[in-house]
């Protein structure tokens, strides 16, 4: 009887141990996140605020005559290791002008980011470089741009996280020859919330 009881106790203990083990494993669904080869796609939407514009001599163009607008973007990231990711970004933004016009941006660039923090919260500092398509009143320009941003995100499942990000956007325009006096250096603040799909 005592052997049977012992056997039952051992069996129950084993089952419990297995169950607890399984529970312990599933309670950390993010254990596999952020390793080399991980990929993610981020969808972002938010505001786009004009900060200031400098002219060819570095003097402030005042007023900038631009009002806050909105932005939307999609980013792809590939993790080169636990903390470094690279990828690409395509976005669309607009601001309105005092005269009733709308200035559109369509930046396309490459990104690099450092990702830190513990799970489920992650933090990142990112940079982005690329070409920016600007369109105003039917006139278009294609110019370089740079972004420097910081953000955080929180896993809500093993595949999805949500977060927020703020980026400073440097959007210059360059003109050649006698029109170099038209060179301008615009600065914007982009803030956005987004969802990240990890795969």
């Amino acid at each position, binding site marked *: 009887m005592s052997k049977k009881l012992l056997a039952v106790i051992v069996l129950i203990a084993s089952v419990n141990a297995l169950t607890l083990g399984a529970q312990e494993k599933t309670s950390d669904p993010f254990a596999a996140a952020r390793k080399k080869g991980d990929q993610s796609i981020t969808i972002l939407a938010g505001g786009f605020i004009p900060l200031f*514009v400098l*002219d060819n001599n570095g003097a402030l*163009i*005042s*007023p*900038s*005559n*631009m009002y806050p607008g909105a932005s939307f973007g999609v980013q792809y990231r*590939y993790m*080169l290791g636990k903390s470094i990711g*690279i990828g690409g970004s395509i976005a669309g933004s607009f601001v309105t*002008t*005092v*005269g*009733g*016009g709308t*200035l559109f941006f369509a930046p396309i660039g490459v990104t690099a980011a450092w990702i830190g923090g513990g799970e489920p919260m992650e933090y990142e500092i990112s940079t982005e470089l690329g*070409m920016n398509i*600007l369109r*105003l*009143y*039917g*006139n*278009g*320009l*294609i*110019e*370089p741009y740079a972004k420097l941003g910081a953000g955080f995100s929180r896993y809500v499942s093993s595949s999805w996280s949500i977060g927020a990000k703020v980026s400073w956007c440097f959007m210059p*325009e360059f*003109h*050649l*020859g006698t*029109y170099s006096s*038209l060179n*301008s250096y*615009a600065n914007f603040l982009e803030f956005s919330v987004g969802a990240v799909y990890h795969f």
Partner: protein
Amino acid sequence: MREYIARLAENSLPKAGKVKSGRTPHAVGLIVAATFILLAFSGCDNTFSVFQTISQEEKQIGADLFKNTTVRAMADDSSNYYALLGQVVWRPKSTTSEGSWDVFSVNGSTDYFAAGLAGDGTNIYVAKADGDNVLDDIYVTSDGGTKWTAMNAATGIGSDVFVDWLKCANNTLFVAVHNSASKYSLFYYDGSSFVSAGAAVSGIDAPLVDILYDGSSSYWLVSDSKVYKGTTLGAIAEDSTASNPDYDRYLLGVASDGAGRVIVSRKDGYIYSYASSVWTPIQIKSSTKLGPVFFLTQPASTPRILIGKGVSSYGYMEYNESTPTLKENGSSFISTSSSIYYSTMLSKQVQAFWQPVNEYDATKKTLFILLASGSTDTYALYRNDYTISTGSWSGWTAE
């Protein structure tokens, strides 16, 4: 990382058989970079600055009456401006424009549809019509709308006609109409009744565009197909001068410098200039549909021709004959900045340019541009003031 990039580039290439074996990921990178650089420089107007253009913009605050509407005609007397929308609206010349426009009471009523408006500097003529644009009557006032006189127009013109436009030329009122059979006719007021302006302009197939007096001896009328001319009221006939701009459905506008010269705009990018009994074609812009034309005599030393654009971007062009030079998109001449031009005229079809008979401020010359409603939420009437002493324009300002 280099391995990864190489693998990524390799995977991004088209499948085997479509790629030359010697192409490396570096070559792909170079091609992408070259494409970007090519796009950057080929797709750009080096003379157009986005941010500096925006910095020159001005906030336009006009009367809401001029939003989402078309201004079809203007007139003035010594005290007021009048503009034709679905009704006639007016404002005193002495006030600032913002918010000071209101519906003009015609013959004691503000509940009417106006089919035409004209003025000779003293008298203001308004054609009232029913909802189908059928002529009711033409009313005239010479005291800013206090007293009106019905001109009994239907007696001379007919009761089943649609009013196309009213126009005063050389202090004579002309009325262009068409009937239900799409036959077009021109009448004028002889002081007591409306009579035909000529057998050649009675019951014709082509819509009538505009009429003017050249300041010398002749009235000039254009339909959308032919030019008509007459030195005597009631005897306007087809112009038979060689090489005139006649062409079916091609004529768009007519203007005069008030000293005997006449120009006519066409759909093919040409204006035809008549002076010393000779028509001369001037190509404004190749294969570009034009619009209404206007002789601008400010500054007097280098007068300009303003030409509406009939293409999708609409707006207008400015042509300086003395150089000759064509300016577009507000780049020079009467526009103070391209940004103001873009934020006011873009996508708006020009109906007419107009200058008042009586200038309220003797130190200035005022120019109005009348626009169609268009696709943008901007105004349909803008003013530009020329200061005689400085020879400068104020720039377009919403009415």
